[in-house]
Structures are given as structure tokens and as C-alpha cells.
């Protein structure tokens, strides 16, 4: 029996109500309060008590927790030659390359890929305009094998938007955003195809299993990873179905978690990988797929814009790609640099507002939105590349960050980095005379290979474009710089500009900033947050500890809300964070709707108190993107 909830228009199953609508949440708050385990309050230096939000074992270790006494914590372990964390373009390219080399040299190699999404490609989100350079190297006969590169770029348009007008900017050949020879793809489908190629070659793919912990040998080198435990209740106690994750040991582990990976965050600290590079800077990208009126459809048309609705000092812009996949499909989205200073800025609402620009509305009118999603992306470029190898492991793809920012393309460099990691790892693993100092292999040859490759040249050439925006004229200063220095010198200028520091440190206090008046969504072109989140298909097992963990539960109200008016309620593209009044009436508390999370990582990046630590939830939770 399936009923349709009349309040929030979501399917209500007898045992599961997807609490997506705010009205549902308020109505059911009384019910939920009963089901929550006895509220644990922690007293801090202030006189008020703070309701317990975080119950995850990374903040409250289980060996000190009486509820875990006597639980069997042994894990099943298995050995592979290479374990790859993350089944995205980098991870799968590395896996494919390893197996290609193994077959070529007639060697046996066990390659395992663990991926937190329920199926390969379900957590992949990107514009995307793919440069096929790396793919041509990896699988030259990709066309015969049916790679879903169906839309070559036919038209390339760039413009500066004002509130009413559109000022076209010519794209001269040589400028980074020239897209001749590239393909518009649905990256999720491309990643799925890569997964099929990998399986054909004998790679063991394990979607639905998240790598939750890095394992170390006694000498400190990386031994492998452990997958997530399952069956832990919302209050942090073990349920009947509790089972430990599994350990996968490897000679070398490749970490390809994508932008701002949670294991990479630990590895940076553990091996001090960021001591000689600038901190990474980020942007958030929000995307929708629309089926539009056939008369407006121009397959192969690539449009980018800057300017309205962002002011000249907020980095960001839009993309709109006409795909050629049978039906008149358009992929469009908005990117906002996470170094924005106004805590009242909401990237989601900027995106919705941008769609109302006359030039965009004319494309979307009469169309239907069919998908929504969001993900953080790297903006640091060359200056922010950390140390990439450490004993037992290597970082590949967007995790360390090889994105070419002005081109807004990172897939080709991610794939190439995976391939180079595979090649260097393969030589090391199959070297019979190898005398390794550490139990986990240390492969500095990877960094050397990267430095000799086209990735390095490409990233070096565009290194000054993004930082050139940090001037009084903002966007216009940056475009001027690009036009003069990049177009003439192609990055050969001898200086390297610096970034502004951590994105989380850029917010100004709320009292110094003006709230932004966003228009109400009209339900036809622009939409509200909760109906958008429903379209991402995201879901998590509700009875598990929230995976958005807080180091200190009192900080959100004491600092984020007090000083910055709670920016997390605005920058989260999935409505995870809400400040709601306390049951007692005086004051607010932070409510974390972890089920809504789309794994974009923006909160971990932008939290001004750096109190939020995103950890991986139970595997197969998260968005269910289809070809995003």
C-alpha cells in the first residue's frame, strides 16, 4: 500500500516516511523526540546546557564507551596487490591501467576498488565538458567500445551577465575556455562505462562499501583500508545487526576520493603532506538536468557566463550544455567560489536566481527539471598540490587536486594522474629486486612522472589566473589579467600569485554584511531546496550516527550562529543544517538532517569554526545520481 503524503507530496510507505518537507519535520518533531535515546546534555563553560548532536565513534571512541564492552571487534582481513579508494575517473583509470599492464607483462595482479556509492557513477557529478586526451591514451578504441561521448562541442559561447543583459565575450583560440575537440558528457554514465571496462579486465569493484579507516603497519606506512562498520544506532550504540567492516591490505593504496576526501584529510596530518604547498581553495558546483522544448535544443552548444547574480568580488559563474543523448537534454549549473565573504550568501539560491536571467529563461521555459545535485570542486590549482606520495600510498585525482580552474576541467588530469600512479606502482610492485625500507611501498617516482607529464605543464601555465581575482576589481581584474598575461605569455611569467588562505577564514561577521534578498522560487524555473534534494535521490539509513560530526557540539550556536548567523544553513545544498528553537523556548539549537546529505563536502570546507568533520556514512548511502 503506497500513499502519497498530501503535505509534502512524497511517497509514504508503511514503515518509511522520507522526512524531507520542513512541515513534516515540525509535525513529527514530537514523535521523533520520543524515539531519541535519553538526551545527553553536555555542560560547557557557558551556563547553558547543549543537547548532544554528535554520537559518532570518531568523536566518542568506543573503547571508553560502556555500551561497547564485550563486543566482538575483530575484523576479517584480505590481501590484494593494490587497493584503490574511490571508483571515480581517477580510481578507475588507475585500476584499468594496472590491469592493462598486468596483462601485457603476463603478471597476476589483484586490484580492488572500494566505492561508497551503491553503484559506480551514483556519486559522480560534474558539468561536464570532457577533454579526451587522457581517454585517448588509456583506451584508444573507446568509440568502438561504446564510451558515452555522444556530444562533440559544436558551439562555444562565453558572456558576462548583468541583471537584464548578456554581453558576449569572444573566445579567442588559445584562451583556456576554448572547447574545440571536446565532448559534452554525462560524467556519471562515463564513469559507469569505465567501471564496465575495469570489470572486463578483471578489476574487483565493490560499490556500496565505503573506506572508513586507514590502516597502518607498525613502521607507520599505510597497510590498507578498513570498510565501514554497519549496524550502529543513531545514539552510537551497537544494534543487533552490528557487524565490523572488513580490512583490505595492499602493497600500495591509491586514494582517489575526489575533492576534499575524508581519508585524505587524515593523511595530510599523518604524513605532513601540506607543509610546502598553499592550502587548497574550493568552489561549490550545483547542477540540474532539464528536458527542454525541442525547438530550443541545440546539441553541442556550450555556454558559460560570469557576472550576475554574483558581485565582482565573488568568484563564480555558470555553465549550460546542450547534450545529444536522444531527448532534448540540457545540463546546467552554477559554481560559487567558497572564498566568498558574505555569510548571508546562499549558493543554492544564487543558482536558482541565475536561472531567471532572460537569456537562460528563454532556454528553460516549457521545460522540465529531472535531476539536481551538488559537489565541491578544487580551485587551488598548481599552488595547492600537496606532497603526493607517502610510504604505502599515493593520492590521485581531485583528492590532491589537478583541476585546470579557468577551463573548469579536472577529469582529464584526474584520469592521467591515476594512470601515472598505476604505471609507477606497477613497476615497483613487480620489481623482483626491490628492497623496500617500509612494509608499505613508497613510490616517489609517481611525483616525478607527474612533473614530466602534460598535467604539470598545463597546471603551471594557468596557475595565476584564479589568484588574479583577488584584487579590488575582482572579476574584471581577473579577466584583464587572463587576457593580457595568459593569452600572450601562456603562464610563462616568472611570478606565482598566492591564494588568500583558507576558505573557512574568509567569512566576515554577519553584523558587517548585508543580508541578501533572494526572490521566492516560482516552481517552474526556480525551486525550493527540499524538492531539489528529493530529486537527488539521496538517502541514508536513518538509524546511524550522523556522519556530519562536530568536534564540539556547543560551537555551532556559540560561534557560527552568534557571529556568522549560521552560514551552514545557507551553504549546504541539501538542507542538512537547520537552526531550530530549543524545546524549552529560549535559544536555538543546531539540527543535523544527515539523511539529506549529498556528500558535497562544502560544510567541512566552509565552516568558519572548522568544527564540522565529514566522515563517511554507511556504504551505499548518499545520492542516487543517474548520469550527472
Amino acid at each position, binding site marked *: 500500500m503506497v500513499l502519497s503524503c498530501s503535505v509534502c507530496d512524497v511517497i509514504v510507505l508503511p*514503515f518509511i516516511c522520507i522526512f524531507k518537507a520542513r512541515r513534516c519535520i515540525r509535525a513529527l518533531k514530537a514523535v521523533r523526540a520520543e524515539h531519541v535515546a535519553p538526551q545527553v546534555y553536555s555542560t560547557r563553560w557557558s551556563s547553558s546546557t547543549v543537547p548532544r548532536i554528535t554520537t559518532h565513534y570518531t568523536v566518542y571512541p568506543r573503547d571508553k564507551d560502556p555500551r561497547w564492552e564485550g563486543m566482538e571487534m575483530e575484523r*576479517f582481513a*584480505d590481501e590484494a596487490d593494490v587497493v584503490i579508494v574511490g571508483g571515480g575517473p581517477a580510481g578507475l583509470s588507475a585500476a584499468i591501467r594496472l590491469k592493462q599492464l598486468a596483462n601485457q607483462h603476463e603478471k597476476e595482479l589483484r586490484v580492488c576498488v572500494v566505492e561508497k556509492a551503491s553503484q559506480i557513477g551514483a556519486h559522480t557529478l560534474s558539468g561536464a565538458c570532457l577533454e579526451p586526451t587522457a581517454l585517448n591514451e588509456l583506451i584508444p578504441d573507446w568509440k568502438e567500445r561504446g564510451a558515452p561521448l555522444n556530444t562533440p562541442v559544436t558551439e562555444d559561447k562565453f558572456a558576462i551577465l548583468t541583471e537584464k543583459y548578456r554581453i558576449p565575450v569572444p573566445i579567442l583560440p588559445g584562451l583556456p575556455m576554448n572547447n574545440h575537440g571536446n565532448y559534452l558528457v554525462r560524467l556519471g554514465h562515463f564513469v559507469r562505462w569505465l567501471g564496465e571496462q575495469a570489470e572486463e579486465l578483471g578489476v574487483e569493484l565493490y560499490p556500496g562499501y565505503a573506506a572508513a579507516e586507514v590502516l597502518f603497519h607498525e613502521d607507520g606506512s599505510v597497510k590498507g583500508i578498513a*570498510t565501514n562498520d554497519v*549496524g550502529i544506532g543513531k545514539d552510537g550504540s551497537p544494534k543487533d545487526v552490528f*557487524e565490523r*567492516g*572488513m580490512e583490505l591490505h595492499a602493497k600500495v593504496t591509491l586514494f582517489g576520493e575526489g575533492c576534499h576526501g575524508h581519508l585524505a584529510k587524515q593523511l595530510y596530518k599523518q604524513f605532513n603532506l601540506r607543509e610546502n604547498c598553499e592550502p587548497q581553495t574550493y568552489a561549490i558546483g550545483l547542477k540540474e538536468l532539464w528536458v527542454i522544448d525541442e525547438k530550443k535544443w541545440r546539441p553541442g552548444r556550450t555556454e558559460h557566463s560570469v557576472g550576475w547574480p554574483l558581485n565582482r568580488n565573488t568568484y563564480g559563474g555558470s555553465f549550460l550544455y546542450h547534450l545529444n543523448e536522444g531527448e532534448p537534454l540540457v545540463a546546467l549549473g552554477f559554481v560559487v567560489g567558497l572564498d566568498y565573504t558574505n555569510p548571508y550568501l546562499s549558493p543554492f539560491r544564487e543558482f536558482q536566481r541565475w536561472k531567471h536571467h532572460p537569456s537562460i529563461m528563454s532556454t528553460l521555459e516549457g521545460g522540465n527539471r529531472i535531476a539536481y545535485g551538488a559537489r565541491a570542486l578544487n580551485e587551488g590549482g598548481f599552488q595547492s598540490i600537496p606532497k603526493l606520495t607517502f610510504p604505502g600510498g599515493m593520492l590521485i585525482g581531485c583528492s590532491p587536486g589537478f583541476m585546470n580552474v579557468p577551463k573548469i576541467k579536472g577529469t582529464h588530469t584526474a584520469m592521467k594522474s591515476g594512470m601515472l600512479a598505476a604505471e609507477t606502482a606497477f613497476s615497483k610492485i613487480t620489481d623482483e629486486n626491490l628492497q623496500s625500507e617500509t612494509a608499505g611501498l613508497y613510490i616517489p617516482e609517481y611525483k616525478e612522472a607527474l612533473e614530466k607529464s602534460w598535467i604539470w605543464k598545463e597546471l603551471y601555465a594557468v596557475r595565476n589566473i584564479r589568484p588574479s581575482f583577488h584584487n579590488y576589481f575582482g572579476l574584471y581584474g581577473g579577466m584583464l589579467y587572463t587576457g593580457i598575461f595568459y593569452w600572450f605569455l601562456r603562464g610563462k611569467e616568472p611570478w606565482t600569485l598566492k591564494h588568500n588562505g583558507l576558505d573557512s577564514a574568509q567569512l566576515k561577521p554577519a553584523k558587517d554584511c548585508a543580508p541578501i534578498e533572494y526572490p521566492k522560487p516560482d516552481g517552474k524555473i526556480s525551486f525550493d531546496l527540499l524538492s531539489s534534494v528529493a530529486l537527488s535521490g539521496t538517502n541514508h539509513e536513518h538509524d546511524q550516527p550522523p556522519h556530519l560530526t562536530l568536534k564540539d557540539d556547543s560551537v555551532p550556536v556559540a560561534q557560527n550562529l552568534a557571529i556568522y548567523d549560521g552560514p551552514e544553513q545557507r551553504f549546504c545544498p541539501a538542507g542538512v543544517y537547520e537552526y531550530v528553537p530549543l524545546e524549552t523556548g529560549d535559544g536555538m539549537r543546531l539540527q543535523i538532517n544527515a539523511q539529506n546529505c549529498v556528500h558535497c563536502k562544502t560544510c567541512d570546507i566552509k565552516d568558519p569554526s572548522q568544527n564540522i568533520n565529514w566522515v563517511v556514512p554507511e556504504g551505499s548511502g548518499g545520492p542516487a545520481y*543517474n548520469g550527472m
Partner: protein
Amino acid sequence: MSARVLVGVKRVIDYAVKIRVKPDRTGVVTDGVKHSMNPFCEIAVEEAVKLKEKKLVKEVVAVSCGPQQVQETIRTALAMGADRGIHVEVSGKDYETLGPLQVSKIFAALAKKEQADLIILGKQAIDDDCNQTGQMTAALLDWPQGTFASEVTLEADKLKVVREIDGGLETIKINLPAVVTADLRLNTPRYATLPNIMKAKKKKITNVKPADLGVDVSSRLEVLKVEKLKEAGRI
């Protein structure tokens, strides 16, 4: 006990995914959409595996009807503890029109072929909400049925089933062989953990065609159109 249990598992669109009707109104979009095992089928598999762990049955066989992709669903059942799987190959147009009548005929044929003593199914699938397969299978086999089971106990060669009905709970005792359909509160399914998924790769899945079982999967129903529900409150 040398009993053999047949468990049906259906691959359906995941419950959290927003459904989209195909532009030609002949059905819903399934290509690339996240699928998972029907939640009631998970409960059925869990019950069968629990019976095996109590040593009341000897073998649990997971069965699914559909194209190549249903093998993933069978593997999940194997990872939960089923011993082997049977994949009944139905694809293309036949799969689009496959309904409870054809599936129950397939199950009846398999039950005879495998000499099953018990069939456990989910009470209904969350995509079609038919709630018919279990009942039809029992009728075709002329076996007793315990549907909407919230508790199942094996007592000698009889099955005590507590059923969830509108007025409350009904307890019945039925002879084996029988068909049971699982309701929500029967149990909490275990997770298919990674070591078990790896072990499941070594378990056997046999492929069978409906024709081999003597079953005709053509449908007597014709779908005229599929439409999205109009929003509440609008005319």
C-alpha cells in the same frame, strides 16, 4: 530437517529515488536508475537464513526473474546467507509485461523441480504493489499459505504463522509444504557485508529459461498509459 526453502527476490527501483515517467507514457525510466532488492524480499531472505541458522532447514535457494542485472540482487541474497541462486532469464518486452501471474507460474514450476518444502516471498513489491504473487503461487501448487507473516515458527512438520491483519494479529497453523509472505515486522534484515559478498561470488547461480519450466510468460494485460499523479489541490 532436510527441508529446502525457495526465496523470491525482486530487483526494484530504490525506494528513495524520484520516479520519472517516460516521455512516451509507456512506463517509468529505469535505465541507469538506482535499483535495489525489494525491502520485503530482504525480510524474506533474512527469515529463510534464520531458519537455516536454527538448523530447521537445510538449503536456501534465492530465485529472481529478469534480465542480466538481477544477478546482482541474487548475489546480495547469497551474501546474506542463501546457498545458491537461480536466475530465470526474462528480458526485453517479456520483462516489461512480467507480472505476478507469470512469476507465480515460474515459482510453482521451480518448487516442483527443486522439491521445495517452503516458499518465502515478500508480501508485495514496492514498484507494482500487487500483493498477488505469494497467493497465486500457493493456489497453483494447492499449498496452504501464511501471508503478511510477522512471526513464523516451525513446529514438527507444521508452520505456525502470526499474520498481520486489519483487526490485529491472527495466528494460524498450516501444513508443510507451504507459501509464506513476509510483512514488515517479521525481522530486521542483516547487512550484506563485504567478506560475504566476496564469498558469494563463489556460490553458484544457475540460469534457467521460462520455456524450460514449461511456463508461458506472455501477458494478457496491456498497459495503455502511465501518467504522473496530478499534484494534490490542483484541478
